[in-house]
C-alpha cells in the first residue's frame, strides 16, 4: 500500500523473465474464448475458409498512403494510383495494458515490478507463439512520449511478433517507470481507437481510480477483443500494517486523508476493499470481461499456470 522505498527497476530481460520461468511457460499459448480467427502462416487454424487470400480490394490512393501498397500494374494501365487492400492479418493480437501511474509504485513486492513481470511473461508467450503483441503503458505524462500520443498514454509498443522481438519488448518494459497520475478513461479511449485486429487484451492495474474504471473498461470491451482485467494488489493493501494518527497522502493526486488507525477502521477498510474488488469483478462479469484480483506476493508462474489457464487466457 505504501510507496515502495527502494523499488526494483528492472534493467534487463533477465530481471523481468527468469530462465526458470521461461521453462515453465514456454509450452503455454494465448487463447481467446471469442476470437477464432486464424493467424499468420496457418499456425492457428481459421474457421473462416477462403479468407486467407491476401488481396481484398482496391481503393483510390490518397495522400499519405503507403507507397508500397500501390498497385503498379493498374497504374500502368490506367495511369491512376490505386491501393491494394489486403485482408487484415488474421493473427491473434495480444494487447497488454499496464498501469504506469504512480500508484503502481507501491507495495512490497512492488506492484509495478509485478505488472512488468506479468506483462513480460505474457508478452513472451505471445511472441513465442507468433502472436502480434502490443504493450501500452497508461499514465499521465507531461512530455509526450510518443508522437501524436495523448498525455494519458505513457508509452506504447506494438506489432511485435516473433521471438526475436523479445528484447524489444523487454526494453520497452524496462524503460517504463511508474509516475504521475492516470486518466484511465482517456487512455482506454485511445487504446480502443488505435487497436487493430482481434485478440486478447490484458489490463494490469490496481483499478484504484477515483474517476472510476467503468468508462475505460467499457470502451475496451467488445470490438472483437477478449478483455482480461487483472487487478494487482500488494499484500499491504489487503492487510494494512499501519497504525497511529496518520495523514495519508494520495501518491497520485496528493489528496489527504487524516485517519486514526483503529480496529474498527481497519475492519471497515477491509470490508470496503473486498466490496470494491467484488464490484470490479461484478462489473467485468457483466461486460464479458474476465476479472481477476491478484496479490503481488503470488508467484508469477502460479498466476500464469494456474489462474490464467483456469480462466482460459492461456492454454
Amino acid at each position, binding site marked *: 500500500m505504501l510507496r515502495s522505498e527502494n523499488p526494483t527497476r528492472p534493467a534487463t530481460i533477465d530481471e523481468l523473465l527468469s530462465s526458470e520461468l521461461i521453462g515453465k511457460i514456454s509450452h503455454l499459448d494465448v487463447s481467446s474464448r471469442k476470437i477464432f480467427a486464424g493467424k499468420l502462416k496457418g499456425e492457428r487454424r481459421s474457421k473462416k475458409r477462403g479468407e486467407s487470400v491476401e488481396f481484398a480490394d482496391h481503393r483510390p490512393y490518397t495522400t499519405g498512403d503507403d507507397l508500397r501498397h500501390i498497385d503498379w500494374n493498374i497504374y500502368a494501365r490506367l495511369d491512376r494510383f490505386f491501393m491494394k487492400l489486403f485482408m487484415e492479418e488474421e493473427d491473434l493480437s495480444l494487447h497488454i495494458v499496464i498501469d504506469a501511474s504512480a500508484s503502481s509504485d507501491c*507495495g512490497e513486492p512492488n506492484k509495478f515490478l509485478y505488472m512488468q513481470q506479468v506483462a513480460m511473461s505474457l508478452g513472451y508467450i505471445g511472441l513465442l507463439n507468433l502472436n502480434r503483441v502490443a504493450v501500452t503503458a497508461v499514465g499521465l505524462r507531461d512530455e509526450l512520449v510518443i508522437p501524436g500520443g495523448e498525455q494519458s498514454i505513457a508509452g506504447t509498443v506494438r506489432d511485435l511478433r516473433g521471438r526475436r522481438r523479445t528484447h524489444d519488448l523487454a526494453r520497452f518494459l524496462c524503460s517504463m517507470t511508474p509516475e504521475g497520475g492516470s486518466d484511465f478513461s482517456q487512455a482506454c479511449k485511445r487504446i480502443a481507437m488505435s487497436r487493430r485486429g482481434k485478440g486478447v487484451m490484458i489490463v494490469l492495474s490496481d483499478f484504484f481510480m477515483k474517476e472510476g474504471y467503468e468508462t475505460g473498461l467499457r470502451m475496451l470491451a467488445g470490438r472483437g477483443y477478449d478483455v482480461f482485467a487483472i487487478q494487482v494488489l500488494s499484500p499491504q493493501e489487503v492487510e494494512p500494517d499501519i497504525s497511529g494518527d496518520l495523514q495519508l497522502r494520495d*501518491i497520485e493526486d496528493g*489528496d489527504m486523508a487524516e485517519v486514526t488507525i483503529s480496529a474498527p477502521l481497519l475492519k471497515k*477498510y477491509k470490508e470496503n476493499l473486498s466490496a470494491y474488488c467484488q464490484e470490479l469483478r461484478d462489473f467485468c462479469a457483466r461486460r464479458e470481461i474476465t476479472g481477476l484480483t491478484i496479490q503481488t506476493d503470488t508467484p508469477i508462474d502460479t498466476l500464469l499456470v494456474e489462474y490464467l489457464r483456469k480462466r482460459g487466457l492461456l492454454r
Partner: protein
Amino acid sequence: MIWATPILAGFVAAIAVPSLVILYFLKLRRIPREVSSTLLWKKAIQDLQANAPFQKLRRNLLLFLQLIILGLILLALAQPRSTATASAGRKLVILIDRSASMRAVDGDISRSSEITRLEVAKERAIGLVEGLAAPSLFEDSEKADEAMVIAFDRSAQIVSQFTSDKTALITAINGIVQTDGPSSIEEAYRLAQSQRPNRIFIDTGSSGEGTDPVEIEGIKGGDAYFFHLFSDGRISDLDVVRADEDTPDAPSFEYHAVGDAGAVSVGLTALRAERDYEDPTKLSVFVGVQSTDPLARSVDAELLVGGAVVSVRSVVLAGAEVDVQTGKKKVSTGGVVFELNEPNGVVVGVRLSTGFGNESSMDVLGTDNSGTLIVPPAKQASVALVTTGSLFLKEALTGLSISDLKVITPGEYEEMRDAGEAGAIDLFVFDRAMPRASEGGVVFDPGRYLIVGDVYTGPGGMIDHGDGPGTQIINWRRVHPLLRDLTLDAVVIGKSRTVEIPDGSELVSLAETTEGPAIIEMSTGDVRAVMVAFDPAFSNWPFDVSFVVFLASAVDYLGTQVGTDVDVNARQITPGFVLADRVPSDAGNIRVRLPDGSMSSEIIAAPDGRIVYGPIHKTGVYSVQWTGSAGVSDVEDDGKIIRHYAANLLDGPESDLGAAASLDLSNRVVSASSKGEITRLKEWWPWLLLGAIAVMMFEWWIYNKKVYL
C-alpha cells in the same frame, strides 16, 4: 461558598479556554504517509462517520469534555470553600482565660471525667483555629484568617503573634498553662489593641477644609479585630473592653462561655496574721471564707503551723442568695480567727475541708481552699539615740513603748561601730550629729538612721548652704508612711537650714519649707536614712503633737520588720503579680524555690538589692534563697539565707465560680455564643481536581471508543 483565589482563576481561564479551543482546532499532528490511493480510506472514514449518529456533536464531544475538565480545574484553582465563617482575611484575637477559676473541674459536665474549664476552653479554641480560612495555595497569605492568641490571668501574655499557621496556633494554645491568679482582661485587651493603629480623624470643620489629622487614643483603626474570649466570664474588669461594631457576617466580640453557671465553690477570700502590739508573741490569724452554695453549709477550717494541724474551727456559711433586682448571686461570707502563741517565725497554713471533688458538696475549685502566711518572729525594734544631750528627743523616744532604747554619745557610737556591734541596733537616732566617715570614706554603715538637726553632705548627699531665715513647712508628702498621719501646718521654724538636693540625686524631699527641703529621705542599698534638716530646738515642733507621732512613725518605718501587721503581710503575693523585694546588697546566687520544689534560674539583683521574679502563676510558698548576709527576718539554713513568701489566691470574685452567661462590656452586653459550634472550613478544590481526572479518563475511554459513537 466562598472563593479564595477567584482572580487568579479568572486570569487562567482567560488564557486557557481560548487556548484549548485553538489547540482543538489545530488538532494533533499526524504522521504523513504516502499511499497508493486514499480512495478506500476516505470511503472507510466516510462510512464510519456516516454511521455515527450526532456526527457534528461527536466531533465536538471531545472538545466539550475537555472544556468540562478545564472548567473543573479552573474551579479548583479558584479554591472554593464552603463555610459559615464568612469572608476570609479576618484578624482574630483569641483570648484564653487561664486564671484560677478556669481550674474548676466543671469544664464539661456532660463528661464523666473531671476536666477543667481551661482544657475545654483550649479544645474550643483549637476548634476555632481549625476552622480558620487557611492561606490559599497560590496566593500569599493575605487572604487567610490570622489569629493571635493571648493567655491572661491578672497579667497577659501573647503566646502567639498574628499568624495564619494553624499548627503554630494550636501549639501555642496547647502550651497555655493554668495559673492560680485572679482574672483581669485589661492587660490582655490592651495588648491586643496595641497591635492596631489609632484611627486618624481629619476634622474638616465648617469650612470644609481639612486640618491636621487627629489621633484619638482608644479609637482604633486598621483591620477589624474579631475577639474570641474563652472564659468562664468571671472577669472583674470587663468594662475596659469596648467592642467594635459587629460586621454583617461575624460579631466583633464573641464570648465562648466555659463552665457551669451553677457551679458551687467555697473558698478563702482573706487571710491575715497580726501580732499583738503589746505582746508580739501573741499571733492572731484571721480567715475569711465565702460560699456560693445556695444551701447553708458548715466548713471546717484547719490551721496548720509548720505543716501540722494545730487547730480546727468550724465556719458556718449561710446559703448564697440571689438578688431579686439584678438577678445576680450574692455570695455568703463568714470568718474565723485563730489565736495562738508563737514567738518564732512560722509558716501558717489554713485549709478548708469543703469536700472538694466530692459529688455531694460540689466544690469545683480546690485552689482557693488553702492559703499560707509567712509570719516573721516576734520582735521589737531596738533603738539607739546618739546624742550629746537633747531633752526633746530623749523624752519623746522614751515615751514611746520601745522595749529596747539605748542612749549613747557619739563617741560610744563610734566604739560600737568599730567593735562591729552596731548591727544589733535596728535604728540609730542621731541628735544634731552625724556618724564619722570611716577610713574608706563610708559615713553610713548598712542600717537605718534618723538624723535630726543635721544633713549628710558627703558623696550622693545634700548641698548645704548653711543657716537660713525663719520659715514654715508649706508642703509635705501626705501619702508617705512617715507623714501620712500628721499635719505640719503649725510648725514654725525659727532658724532654718538651707539645703539643696542636687540634680540626679536619689534623695527625696518629704517636706519643704519656703527655703527648700526640710525632711529628706535617703535610700541607697542597705542604708535608709531620714534627715530633718532644721534643729527642732529652734522651732515649736517639739511642742506639737506631730513631733511625737513623727518619731513613732519613724521608728515604725525605719525600725524595719518590727511587730506590726504591715510586715507580717508584706510577704504575701497574689498569683499574677511579680515577687518584688529587696535583699542585702552582698547577696549572691539568688534563686527562688517554687512551690513544686524546683529552683528558678539565678536572679541578678539590682545595685540597691532590688529583685524581681515573676509574674508568679501558682499558689504556695515561694522561697528566695541567697548566700551572703541575712535580713532581719530571714532564716539561715545550711549556709543559705532563705526568705519565704506566700502566694494565695484570696480573691472573692475569682472564687465565685458560676460561669457568666453574658458579659457586660463597656458599650454593650455580649451573650455567650452557642456552645462550641464553630463551623469547619471545607476545601472543595481536591474534589474538583478529582472530578477533572475522572472526566479526563472518561474522555480517554471515549477517544478510544469514539468510532462507535
